[in-house]
């Protein structure tokens, strides 16, 4: 405990000296720092903040020091996150390298690969995207057809990926490819790291119902990939893929923890519900109660479930700390519950706001209201990306409950 107190003290001091003032202001939608070769910083302070945090390894606090990570223990990281929260510091770096690829590389990659790729992720030098789904392979991911053929010291890759997040701004793509066309489907897949800066790789944004284009199609036309970019063994990529999906699911599950609905206890000990407060401004109140009893009941249920869910995430993290096990098939439960809960959150906001949540653009709606319309549409993908809710329930049934095939 004494060491932890000391750590907290040092962390406070370091943050006081090193977190630039601009990085303590609330973030707008364009303020996320994704890193990469052509990284766009919203402010010079964002660059400084990334450099300082990257140098310390605190963009990836629990990763091993030898690869540039922070080398922090579970408890130290908890303290770091608390202290970052306390000064409302913006995340120095957001990336799929941190959330998804890095943890899988640490588990499956060769020493050379770790030495090369992990520090780049920590410092935000390379921006990664994910090449998993294909037009014909969605929920049935293992039926994928993009093929990689052996051509001496390199592979030649041909095919198409879809739902590659922000691929048009990315430097590298981690990709599942078919290397064993004769093998049973799960046993002929390999995990390749592909540089997108080459003529054989092109991307095309997909316009979504929200009007935005966070996803792309990515085409491989005789793309060249050096042999040393194969992670794990040839035709053993499915193991890496599954593990990485668990990390992805944990990341998406985190959305279920989002702000608006959860009841929070403020410093003065009064308790409030973000969702109910918001609803009151749109539907009014009646002697302190939300004026619409039906909506009030739904929000109470939602708040109760949100609380129970975040508590369960916390409990799982405390339990995995004691057993040191990392993500498990139970991450499917969190993915399922978190994404369904996030969808419900926005449906309730729509109910509360009525036509005010249905504006598309222009006059008559505030910017926050217009953002909610778009976010509501965005949440519809939460229960599809990273494996649909139905796929998660399949996984829970088979891997956790051990029900018969």
């Amino acid at each position, binding site marked *: 405990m004494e060491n932890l107190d000391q750590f907290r003290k040092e962390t406070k001091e370091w943050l006081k000296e090193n977190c630039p003032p601009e990085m303590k202001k609330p973030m707008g939608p364009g303020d996320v720092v994704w890193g990469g070769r052509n990284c766009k910083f919203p402010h010079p302070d964002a660059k400084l903040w990334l450099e300082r945090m990257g140098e310390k390894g605190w963009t990836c606090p629990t990763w091993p020091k030898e690869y540039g990570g922070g080398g922090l223990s579970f408890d130290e990281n908890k303290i770091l996150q608390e202290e970052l929260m306390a000064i409302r510091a913006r995340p120095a770096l957001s990336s799929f390298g941190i959330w998804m690829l890095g943890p899988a590389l640490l588990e499956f990659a060769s020493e050379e690969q770790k030495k090369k790729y992990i520090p780049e992720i920590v410092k935000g030098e390379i921006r990664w995207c994910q090449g998993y789904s294909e037009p014909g392979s969605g929920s049935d991911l293992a039926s994928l057809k993009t093929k990689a053929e052996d051509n001496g010291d390199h592979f030649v890759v041909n095919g198409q990926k879809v739902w590659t997040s922000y691929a048009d701004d990315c430097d590298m793509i981690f990709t599942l490819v078919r290397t064993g066309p004769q093998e049973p489907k799960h046993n002929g897949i390999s995990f390749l790291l592909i540089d997108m800066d080459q003529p054989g790789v092109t991307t095309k944004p997909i316009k979504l119902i929200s009007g935005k284009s966070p996803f792309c199609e990515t085409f491989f036309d005789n793309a060249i990939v050096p042999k040393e970019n194969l992670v794990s063994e040839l035709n053993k990529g499915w193991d890496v893929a599954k593990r990485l999906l668990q990390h992805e699911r944990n990341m998406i599950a985190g959305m279920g923890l989002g702000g608006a609905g959860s009841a929070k206890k403020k410093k003065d000990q009064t*308790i409030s519900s973000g969702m*109910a407060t918001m609803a009151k401004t749109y539907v009014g109140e009646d002697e302190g109660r939300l004026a619409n009893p039906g909506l009030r009941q739904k929000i*109470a249920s939602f708040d109760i479930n949100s609380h129970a869910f975040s*508590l369960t995430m916390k409990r799982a993290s405390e339990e995995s700390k004691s057993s040191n096990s990392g993500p498990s098939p139970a991450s499917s439960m969190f993915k*399922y519950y978190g994404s369904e809960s996030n969808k419900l959150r926005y449906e309730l906001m729509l109910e509360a706001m009525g036509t005010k949540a249905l504006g598309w653009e222009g006059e008559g709606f505030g910017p926050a209201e217009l953002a909610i319309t778009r976010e509501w549409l965005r949440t519809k993908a939460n229960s599809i990306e990273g494996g649909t809710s139905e796929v998660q329930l*399949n996984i829970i049934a088979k891997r956790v409950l051990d*029900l018969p095939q």
Partner: protein
Amino acid sequence: MSLVLNEEQVFLKDSAKKFATEKTPTTHFREVRDSEIENCYDDKIWQEMVSLGWTGILVPEEFGGSNFGVAGISSILEELGRTLTPSPLFSTAVVGVSLIKHANVDVKKDILSKVVQEGLRLCFAIEESNHHDLLKISCEAKKEGKNFNISGEKSFVIDGGFADKVIIACRTSGEEGKKDGLSLFVLDADSKGLTITPTKMVDSRNAANMKFDNVKVSSDMLIGKEGDAYEIIESVLDISRSAISAEMLGSALQAYEITIDYLKEREQFGSKIGSFQALQHRAAIMFSELELCKSCVIESITSFDEGGNDSERLASLSKAKVGEVFHLISNESVQMHGGIGVTDEYDIGLYLKRARVAEQIFGDSNFHKNRYAELTGY
């Protein structure tokens, strides 16, 4: 608040598990239910619980108890809930003891030591209508010199049919709907003017109706201050709601596990029915909901012992969530069993019956969602 039990609580839970498995499996419940014994009460089992010290878990050490706390007794109830063990442990060791702790020192000393040593049985007469409502109390206690005369009617008094002492919530002033004027008294179950009519509920357990016709009780038997019992009652109810949530969680977990086992063994259309996606998804949802319940229960039962100041909201959260999930699981379990699920021979129906009664104890899910919203400021 902790999200894991400490060593002491784990020990209590393990010994309760052993007790429930060896002494009170559901066959014990059936024996008692189907025997000539009245009120679904087995005195031998009760005395064994007493000798294990379970009635003293919330009793301070100075009165012979172990003071192991709400999380301790709740962990025991969770295990007993798994096998639907019928006993007055909840009504005595949780509700009754928590109320008596607010009595004057002589009453405390007398009653608590008898609860710990002899298994004196307590019950709480609070409800007057078919829905839990603390303010809807019109039973009256009129002061006459050093005594009070109590008149009125009570219903759904859990384990009231065989209790030795009755603790009653009534009005010494004020009118129905008001917090002020509520008072608590403890009196003998065989007091003159008190008529106790045991009623058998759908879960085969006993909840009594009580009629008070000018029942005389000394003012020494007042618990807390005259007319000022509201806060005491609410705080005891919150402990009780959390503890009964733990018992309900145990029952829900068992019903779920019985069902999962059945899905793995029952064959139709040449396959195990657990291979059918229509059932797999529902089973997976039950699993997820139970994980959420476990978190709510542990947070709530540990909050009292750790002196948290959010206990009332956590109690409502826990009772609302667990009530809803036990409801879901009790229905799904019967459906997934098919025809065998609606036979008396098979255990799963017992959990359905218990679920509905337990849901009503000190407020159902609707009650607690409403209360949660109020406590959260909407």
